[in-house]
């Protein structure tokens, strides 16, 4: 079907490489502006949402922990440990 001596066939096959000549640069200039990096704000929002959810779920243990931090000292640390244990317990109970 394709005769290499056919001048039309030869002309059709003759497609030389076109130099870029600034074409790529022109395309890049017309691209939409760079989208802002939303990872930081998204992570912060997710962290805050998680904290709010935790506070709503574990209200009392968190209050105890805050008190422990406020009073300080060895008794405060013990209280904080108890709060963490209570929170873990609450989580385990809710998971069942």
């Amino acid at each position: 079907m394709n005769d290499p001596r056919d001048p039309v066939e030869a002309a059709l096959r003759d497609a030389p490489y076109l130099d870029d000549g600034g074409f790529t640069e022109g395309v890049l200039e017309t691209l939409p502006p760079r989208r802002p990096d939303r990872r930081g704000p998204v992570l912060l929002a997710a962290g805050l949402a998680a904290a709010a959810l935790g506070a709503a779920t574990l209200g009392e243990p968190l209050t105890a922990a805050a008190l422990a931090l406020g009073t300080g000292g060895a008794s405060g640390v013990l209280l904080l440990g108890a709060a963490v244990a209570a929170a873990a317990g609450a989580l385990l109970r809710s998971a069942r």
Partner: protein
Amino acid sequence: MGPSDAELCARVVAHDDRHAFAALVRRHQSAIRSVLRRLCGGDAALADDLSQETFVRAWKGLRSWSGGARFSTWLHRIAVNAWISQARRAEPPVPDDPGHQEAASGPVEARRDLERAFAHLRPEERLALALAYAQDLTHEEAAEVAGWPVGTLKSHLLRGKEKLRQRLVPQEGAA
């Protein structure tokens, strides 16, 4: 050799990486611009505008490229769609010379003559010839880009080539 098209696309999608996209444009610009020059009947300025539109559309739709087809096949499909949209918007072109063309004096002029001769073909013949002789498409891929069975592509090819022959090749006995 450099990174593959798929690797470059992944970088663009994940990190908005414009250097990776520039590498893709540099790699495929010649093939896309050549096809569009033929589709546009030798109008290089229009072909370059449509090529630019093709790459911008590709940038916007890169997430939709599944990797099922080759990247170049996907790009050619975008280019053909851009050409079809432009043809719908534009007035139908009036070929400047309905008769036989004088023989070209050199290879560059011969190439331009060929591109101009495309303007005298029916759109489906133009599409078949431009895609089937594209730098990096098989006939199967060309048919896929055009949305035709391979047999349909081949029959448009034959008719288109015959018309080009009548226009470009000096006929025996012609004055």
